[in-house]
């Protein structure tokens, strides 16, 4: 229905609209202040405007009113007035569909710079009636549309593109609805400043990690040392399934991991100062790449940065610690 889309204010005055909406948002931000981690939508922070369909609906009912007056037809007056009444009701219903919703930040997963951070926002309906057609958005990025049953809480995902390592903040996002008839759009802006961590973008072509000064024995990055079987130990979460002694498991019902002499002694150190690169970011990128690769092969690794160091270990928590340190290394405001 191109005609209806054409009538939307966004289309009619794109430039003015952009400038005006920036201004309005700044004003709203000043007016509302920052929001807490759990924000309940109050009527005073909800805005409402007619949509293109709403404007056409208004024009149509006006034409019908003129027609009814001209013909003095009392039944078409009834029809016209019911439609006008529906317009009124739709306006209130549209706004009330959002009032009282509880919005809270439900975390993000760390991403590498260049990927988009998936901000998870929980919206809870703490009322007796269902809320329909709720959507979250940031400018042109929109989440899925969801209905919320009474008492239900659902997660909306907002993807945010990242460019640099460090913290990514969702300064502002909106929640809106067109329910019931798309005659009105009601929305609220939220400034909860949820943060997500962005790891450095891993270097595409990294030199092999240097032979560590503390590593016992000489080994290359790609030498797994898997031939040097050293024995079995109890399986730990995080051990590679490739290293599980499946035959032993079949015999004894006990999960055991194979230990290799090479792996045992490969607790290598990735040293910031040892990386040969043009600049800081490049160094961090190479370190990131090494950590990812080492993590993939379940090797122990340690990370040494100026001022902090993480002794060799492996596993998800260790990886996260190291990558986070890289992400925030040297930033002026590491707390976000």
């Amino acid at each position, binding site marked *: *229905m191109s005609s*209806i889309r054409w009538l939307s204010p966004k289309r009619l005055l794109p430039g003015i609209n952009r400038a005006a909406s920036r201004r309005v948002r700044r004003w709203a931000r000043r007016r509302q202040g920052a929001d807490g981690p759990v924000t309940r939508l109050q009527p005073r922070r909800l805005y409402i405007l007619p949509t293109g*369909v709403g404007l*056409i609906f208004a024009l*149509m009912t006006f034409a*019908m009113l*003129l*027609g009814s*007056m*001209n*013909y*003095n*037809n*009392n*039944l*078409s*007056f*009834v*029809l*016209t*007035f*019911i*439609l*006008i*009444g*529906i317009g*009124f*009701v*739709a306006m*209130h*219903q549209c706004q*009330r569909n959002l*009032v*009282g919703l509880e919005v809270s930040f439900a975390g993000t997963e760390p991403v590498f710079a260049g990927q988009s951070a998936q901000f998870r926002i929980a919206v809870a309906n*703490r*009322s*007796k*009636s269902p*809320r*329909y*057609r709720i959507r979250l958005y940031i400018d042109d990025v929109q989440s899925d*549309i969801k*209905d919320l049953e*009474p*008492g239900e809480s659902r997660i909306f995902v907002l993807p945010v593109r990242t460019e640099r390592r460090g913290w990514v903040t969702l300064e502002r996002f909106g929640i809106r609805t*067109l*329910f*019931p*008839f*798309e005659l009105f759009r009601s929305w609220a802006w939220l400034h909860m400043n949820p943060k997500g961590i962005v790891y450095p973008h891993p270097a595409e072509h990294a030199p092999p990690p240097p032979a560590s000064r503390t590593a016992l024995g000489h080994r290359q990055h790609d030498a797994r040392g898997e031939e040097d079987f050293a024995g079995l130990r109890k399986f730990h979460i995080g051990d590679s399934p490739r290293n599980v002694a499946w035959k032993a498991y079949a015999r004894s019902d006990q999960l055991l991991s194979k230990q290799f002499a090479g792996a045992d002694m490969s607790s290598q150190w990735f040293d910031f100062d040892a990386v040969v690169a043009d600049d800081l970011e490049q160094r961090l990128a190479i370190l990131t790449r090494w950590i990812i690769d080492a993590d993939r092969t379940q090797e122990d690794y340690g990370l040494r940065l100026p001022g902090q160091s993480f002794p060799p270990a492996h596993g998800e928590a260790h990886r996260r610690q190291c990558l986070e340190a890289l992400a925030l290394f040297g930033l002026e405001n590491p707390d976000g």
Partner: protein
Amino acid sequence: MAKARGTDGSLLASLPWTLLALAFALLPHVPYLPAWITAALLTCAIWRYSIEVRRKPVPPALLRAALALLAFLGVLYTYSTISGVGPGSALLAIMAALKLLETRQRRDQFVLLFIAIFLVMSSLLREQYLWSLPYLVLGIILIMTAWLRTAADDAEPVRRSLGTSGRLVLYAAPLALAMWIFFPRISTPFWAVPIDTGTAVTGLSDTISPGDISALSKSDAVAFRVKFEGTVPDPKDRYWRGLVLHRFDGRTWSGISEPRISSSALENTETLGTAVNYRVTMEPTRQHWMFALDIPYDWDLESTFLGPQHQLARVQPIDQRIAYNAVSFPEYRIDAGMHSSRRNWYLEFPEGRNPRTAELARSMRAAARSDESYIHAVLTKFNEENYHYTLEPPPLGSRPVDRFLFETQRGFCEHYASAFALMMRAAGIPARIVVGYQGGELNPVGDYMIVRQADAHAWTEVWLPGAGWRRVDPTAAVAPERVDAGRTGAMFDGSGAAWGLGAPSMLLHNIVLAWDAANAKWNEWILGYGPENQERFMTWLGMDDPDWRQMLLTLVAIVTGLTMLISLALILRYRPPPRDRAAILYDRFVRKSGLTPATGETPRVFAGRVQRDGALPAVAVRGITDTYLDVRYGPPDPSLLQRLESDIAAL
């Protein structure tokens, strides 16, 4: 031409509802639309739906354009115009059919629903029956349901969409009612568009030609309804004067072509006896004539006047239902002193067209002592000789009166009036024919009189020196029961027969009367709510001298109040559910402890803190916490809740 892409089935949840809403909106148009348009819309609906089911692409743009052109030409060919309700609704139906074929996205259906709304509107312009109100309300609920479903989740049950749109229409209803009552009505239209409703309006014809194909209506359609103040005239006095015919060409009687104002008609009226006051609500006739009890003396409708022959007429044709109060005098003397030149007007007839009638009249007049006895002799002749009253008389050739009087001798009121008037004129007595209605059935439900098209009647008036115009109804001489009893019973039998009941059913008759009474109220209060009724209603509400400003202000105030009520209803609707008993009791316990649980602190951890605090007995705290957790997470057990309450009270 756009690349043909298959549809994705995303319309399957909403399209059936859009189609249903369209079909419902089209329903009242079907009898008036040419069959090909209904068929086209039906075909397109089925076509489009099967496209969606089979995920096929919609028809190409070129084909759609060709179909559009064809359909438009078809409408133009059928109606030879595109304005008016008939062609307008035909075009709407065609637009809906074509839009269906290019509907790809869910939102495209809005256009279809807008068309459905306009179809409902145009059906209301065409006809406004009692059932039109439930029809339009149901139509809106269906349309709004379809509207909701264009955006709703695919899995949303139909009952829920219907519930939501029904609820919103219910909220809108009081607003609509307030606007309907208080929105100022105006009497003059902005632009005059003839409403081509496509319905035939039955009324009286401007001329009568006895012997042509019987044009007498047997229709039970209501001509007008009358409410009397005080006594109701006897059946024999229920002559409703319409138009007067005085020109006779040997075959056809005609009157003045356009009503003219006569300033002298009232002056030449001498009223005798008592006045009859009544209110007439007249169905549209698209003619100028209005009906009043013989003989009308006063009325309260603007741009309405009394013609020289005491016929009541309105300047503009009556194309809407009108209501007026009137005063009549059943006993009167009019035009007693008519000038001889005017008298000659009422004596003219073409010599030689009906020679035998003229000859008979002259010989009978010669045999009679006076005009009165001559009139009596003619009536006696009708009464005693072999004349019959029938609604299906044989056709009468080129000398209609001669053939009727001497050969067929069978006819209805027009035949007798025509023959009688000619016999009077041939004998030198001024005579004319009055066309109107005779009779009327009293409806005890609602206490008013129904005059139907089948009550249409023609009678004569003769002028006698000193007495003026005197009504003579020759039909009464032939079929006295036609005049005395009116037609009561005819309809009664008729409706029984229409329902396939052999014996007249009194119950059915009463239902028919009750239905008519409901319609009369409907017409008066709903359809007739115009400037006058509105003013009356506003005055009754206590507004003195109501004008449009006052009404609009009142309307704004009421709408504001109602909007606040709707807001309140919505707030209640979205209020949080009541806290359960256990939570309330636990809160009581927390208050007694004097501590505040931290966010995320479990009851057990909190209990530990309370015990360390020492203000409450540790055992009781432990017990209460356990009971609370059992109530919360254990199987339902009312005794636990009681124990919790008593334990907390005991603290």
